[in-house]
């Protein structure tokens, strides 16, 4: 059922696309054909008639809420897991409905590969464009397009090519150039795990082969070193009366004992003394390891500060511009105050300007916009009560992203990418 060799890599996958295009069915098909679903779980979604996969409502394998099964739609992300001899997959199955876009952004934000589903009968729809645009903003390094329900159009190659061309053009306008398009029938199982007998005209890889072949190394260890401090460890026990260590997860880059560092935003300098883990001290550590650092000097560092290499410091500022996916019921508007959480730092912020709202269909920018309603995307300027240490999102996903929190409801109302 699953792989017992744990030396394999992790791939985080997300399925997106318009309502009913077959996202949940595709995930169900992947689970079924790789034997990633247990017998008793399959039994629970078995229909009256039909055998094998035919007798199963594949979408119901992932639509885990009673309300979803009642309505036949996905409301919130489901996370499902399977492993092949090559990889372990974490799959986030997202809802297609516009109403639940915030859940789609949730599922996509941690992924490194997106599979966009398109119903071959319908082609590229507004939700397809919206999701594609969000994926491009989130900077997912890989995009796979599954043109689905080929069984309903007699596995017609010309239709496949037409849709492929349309989406390729739309993606190119957003800087996505290497699309992998695959004709599939999630329901019948063509080109997902098995090739099937219906599309001999297609020479490329199946969905699973594609996912197994993608290079998942995001090379975050090669970026500049960024270490947002989560906690200051001061056990004050009899064995460790004076210990002061800085706990965190390396957001990017590598760090060695003896490296010269600087603490931001205050800018105090020191040298790395130890890199501590439960399994012993390390000479070198890299992203995304969780470690504890100690320094040669007694300098003041607390949660929310960032430790970086002295010669490769990022920006520290109180005014930032960011692209925002808005998720609040109440629109985002100028002059409003929010909390933002960026790495391990939560600060108060005020929207000083809405620069534009993006039109999802035309990818044009409406500069007259004075608010962003739920599910809208745009660029805003923010003024902060204290400075943030950040990189541009395009350079560093971990230090270039933040969330916006409504200071009254405490809800997460926006996903933001610094530009």
């Amino acid at each position, binding site marked *: 059922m699953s792989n017992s060799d744990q030396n394999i890599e992790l791939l985080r996958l997300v399925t997106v696309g318009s309502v009913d295009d077959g996202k949940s069915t595709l995930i169900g098909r992947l689970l079924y054909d790789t034997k990633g679903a247990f017998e008793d779980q399959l039994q629970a979604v078995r229909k009256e008639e039909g055998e094998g996969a035919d007798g199963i409502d594949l979408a119901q394998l992932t639509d885990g809420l009673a309300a979803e099964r009642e309505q036949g739609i996905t409301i919130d992300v489901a996370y499902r897991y399977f492993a092949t001899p090559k990889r372990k997959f974490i799959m986030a199955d997202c809802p297609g409905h516009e109403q639940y876009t915030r859940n789609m952004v949730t599922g996509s934000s941690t992924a490194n590969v997106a599979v966009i589903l398109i119903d071959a009968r319908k082609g590229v729809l507004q939700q397809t464009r919206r999701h594609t645009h969000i994926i491009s903003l989130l900077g997912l390094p890989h995009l796979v397009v599954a043109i689905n329900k080929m069984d309903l159009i007699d596995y017609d190659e010309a239709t496949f090519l037409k849709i492929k061309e349309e989406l390729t053009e739309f993606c190119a306008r957003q800087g996505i150039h290497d699309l992998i398009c695959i004709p599939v029938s999630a329901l019948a199982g063509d080109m997902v795990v098995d090739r099937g007998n219906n599309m001999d005209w297609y020479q490329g890889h199946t969905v699973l082969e594609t996912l197994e072949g993608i290079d998942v190394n995001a090379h975050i260890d090669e970026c500049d070193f960024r270490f947002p401090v989560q906690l200051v460890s001061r056990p004050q026990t009899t064995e460790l009366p004076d210990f002061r260590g800085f706990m965190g997860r390396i957001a990017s880059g590598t760090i060695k004992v003896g490296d010269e560092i600087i603490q931001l935003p205050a800018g105090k300098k020191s040298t790395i003394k130890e890199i501590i883990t439960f399994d012993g001290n390390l000479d070198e550590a890299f992203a995304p390891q969780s470690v504890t650092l100690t320094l040669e000097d007694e300098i003041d560092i607390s949660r929310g500060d960032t430790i970086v290499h002295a010669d490769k410091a990022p920006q520290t500022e109180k005014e930032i511009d960011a692209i925002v996916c808005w998720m609040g019921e109440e629109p985002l508007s100028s002059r409003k105050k929010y909390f933002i959480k960026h790495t391990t730092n*939560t600060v108060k912020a005020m929207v000083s300007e809405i620069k534009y709202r993006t039109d999802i269909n035309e990818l044009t920018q409406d500069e007259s916009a004075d608010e962003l309603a739920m599910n809208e995307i745009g660029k805003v300027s923010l003024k902060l009560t204290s400075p943030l240490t950040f990189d541009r999102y395009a350079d560093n996903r971990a230090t270039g992203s*933040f969330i916006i929190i409504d200071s009254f409801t405490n809800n997460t109302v926006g996903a933001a990418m610094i530009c």
Partner: protein
Amino acid sequence: MPQHKLTQLQELESESIHIMREVVAEFRNPVMMYSVGKDSSVMLHLARKAFYPGPLPFTLLHVDTGYKFQEMYEFRDWYVKEVGAKLTVHRNEDAITKGMNPHEFGVARCCGALKTGALLEALEKGGFDAAFGGARRDEERSRAKERVYSMRDSFGQWDPKNQRPELWNLYNGRIHDGESVRVFPISNWTEMDVWSYIKEENIPIVPLYYAKERPMVERGNHLIPASEGQLLLEGEEPKMVMSRFRTLGCMPCTGAVRSSATTIEEIIEEASIATRSERETRIIDHGSNSMEDKKKEGYF
């Protein structure tokens, strides 16, 4: 150039540690649920790593129904001492004294009183604003829908249709008075990951997970342990069966599986070819009261 790559288990470990540290940094009074099972063992081990070289910055909370296996109580008391943790045990004494049991009152009511009720009572009594749980998304389809930070209202209830967005690894820990979060640091671990990690890290687990000749009765599709304190139905004769447990819960409601796996390697081998999920041995999941319903009522 050295290879800077983590295996998928190391990546999961680092993610879990990050989550635990965020909670300790942002919440006033966190607690870690400790159910004595394998997932709890892994979670506790990760917590020790997360806060090393310091001690655990929170207590462990065991919600005891009084129906756990003797081996579980023994293991709990030994292991907690071994790792130097602080443990609070909470029981719904009122219901236990009144003789609450699944046979007369039904599984749903029994769980409602001894697990969910006791849990909510314990969280309230301790004034905890965050509680770590060892649930995994791969266990069950409504769990697959859960966020890492699961918001609960002042009654501990989950609202699955209105979950907070959870973006990147930026967890929003802001809550109102009376609200709390359940935090699942091993959300992304599968059963196989848990076993492999137990092996690699040499994590002690309750001996019930290893196969041994044990007295059992067959009831329907289930293999029910005929341990001391177990209520047997009329005509049921215990016989010795080579068996083990894939998950550990309450004695009356946890089934065993036939198995000859006496080592962790053999357990992993079994898990890798298992065709049925581990939850199937939990009688609690099968009634009309689904996991989703229980979670809406405040269960983990």
